């Protein structure tokens, strides 16, 4: 693919993962002129390694404002999927049959129930507290070797790889909008206002820039003199061989894909930028999955991988205009929030007005924890 030495667009989106591609898709839908810069295989690519839950039930425990935002994101997901599938003919394999949060011990169940009650007062998200015998109605084959779980009927899962492929297909319908193997080395002030995006292949001038590069946002924000409080948090995932379809309700520990394979996961490791997999975590993930679903004992693993979550101190997203016309979007939940990112968040970038319910996610909320007087507030 050849682009000119220097080209111009209204909006440059840095990052071609689930966040960047959802925003680029949304901006194109709104008639904006967009260039999406996708780094390529060298990137950490959380979008290619994630579990695919479409989930509100587990969100907001550290920042209550996240609960209604996540709920809204899950509520509009089906419409978003329908439009994206209509545009690309790619089935996102969305299923919202409910989602389960397992609580191994009684104290876990009590604590989780208290959190859910607190968040329900904020967001209205409904849930059920279930014992193993009741969970078996939703999840056949579940054991009784744990305290219980929280069931949110609105939750579900999609195929994150299909989602990413569909977003890229949708963006690529506009010639020149999707720029592959286009690692952005820096953002510079534009000569006539706006910004200049610099890659190895040339430069692109733009009026606005969206920082949606996952962990790459750290370096991008630094170009604008802003330090971000995001860190990598490793998750390891195991995938099994195919099995007869039995499980239509997912959890963070076990979900069955449309193709019959099971994904096993749920590890959280603070190990920096290390994307290797380890024996100990593989063993622990498998052991917990078998504790909940004993029949998995005879289902064999095919492979494993790890990916890095992009985590803010309160696990919630950050939306902020960190410099005039420079929009920061970072989050851990690129799947759950994809519909909102292509809708309201793209609208914010196009029209400049952040919806009231997204206002709490400004960068300044971390100012007390990470004193950075030069940080701009949107």
């Amino acid at each position, binding site marked *: 693919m050849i682009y000119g030495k220097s080209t111009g667009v209204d909006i440059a989106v840095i990052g071609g993962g689930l966040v960047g591609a959802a925003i680029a898709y949304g901006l194109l839908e709104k008639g904006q002129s967009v260039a999406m810069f996708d780094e390529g295989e060298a990137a950490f690519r959380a979008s290619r390694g994630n579990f695919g839950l479409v989930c509100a039930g587990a969100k907001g425990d550290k920042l209550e404002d996240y609960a209604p935002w996540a709920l809204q994101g899950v509520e509009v997901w089906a419409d978003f999927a329908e439009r994206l599938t209509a545009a690309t003919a790619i089935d996102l394999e969305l299923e919202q049959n409910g989602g389960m949060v397992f609580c191994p011990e009684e104290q876990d169940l009590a604590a989780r129930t208290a959190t859910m009650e607190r968040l329900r007062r904020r967001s209205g998200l409904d849930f059920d507290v279930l014992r193993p015998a009741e969970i078996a109605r939703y999840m056949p084959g579940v054991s009784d070797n744990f305290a219980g779980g929280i069931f949110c009927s609105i939750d579900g899962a999609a195929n994150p790889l299909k989602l990413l492929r569909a977003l890229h297909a949708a963006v690529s319908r506009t010639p020149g909008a999707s720029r592959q193997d286009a690692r952005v080395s820096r953002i510079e002030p534009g000569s006539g206002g706006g910004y200049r995006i610099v890659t190895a292949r040339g430069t692109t001038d733009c009026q606005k820039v969206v920082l949606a590069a996952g962990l790459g946002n750290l370096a991008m924000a630094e170009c604008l003199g802003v330090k971000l409080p995001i860190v990598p948090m490793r998750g390891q995932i195991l995938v099994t*061989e*195919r099995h007869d379809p039995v499980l239509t309700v997912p959890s963070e520990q076990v979900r069955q894909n449309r*193709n*019959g394979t099971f994904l096993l996961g749920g590890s959280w490791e603070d190990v920096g930028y290390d994307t290797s997999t380890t024996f100990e975590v593989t063993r622990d993930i498998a052991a917990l999955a078998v504790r909940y679903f004993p029949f998995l004992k005879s289902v064999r693993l095919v492979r494993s991988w790890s990916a890095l979550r992009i985590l803010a101190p309160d696990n919630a997203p950050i939306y902020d205009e960190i410099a005039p016309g420079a929009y920061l979007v970072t989050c851990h939940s690129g799947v759950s929030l994809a519909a909102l990112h292509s809708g309201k968040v793209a609208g914010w970038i196009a029209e400049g007005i952040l919806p009231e319910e997204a206002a709490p996610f400004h960068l300044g909320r971390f100012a007390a924890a990470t004193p950075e007087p030069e940080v701009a507030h949107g």
Partner: protein
Amino acid sequence: MNKLTTSFSAPFPLFRPIGDEPAEILLELDGKPLAARATDTVASLLLRHIAPETYRHSAVAGEPRAPLCLMGVCFECLIEIDGQKNQQGCLVRVRDGMRVRRQIREGGCDEQA
């Protein structure tokens, strides 16, 4: 022996044996006895005794599948052996007393009588 082997004889088997090696290994296919040659793999044995479209149904779509590459690459020959599902039949040599079970959807495929 003849009676045992004919209980799984397909009307048009995909393969026939070469040489005159005796069938001296006795195993179970879907709970019924079947005699095999010592050099057989599970896949080679079945390809002589069942209609290939009754070898396996895929896990999700339930489509008929049969051994293809016979060298461990294509994973089409998956079959339950001694209680463990999804073994590669083309890589497993037959053994006396082995219990082989085809992964067939219930009601999806006629038993060879």
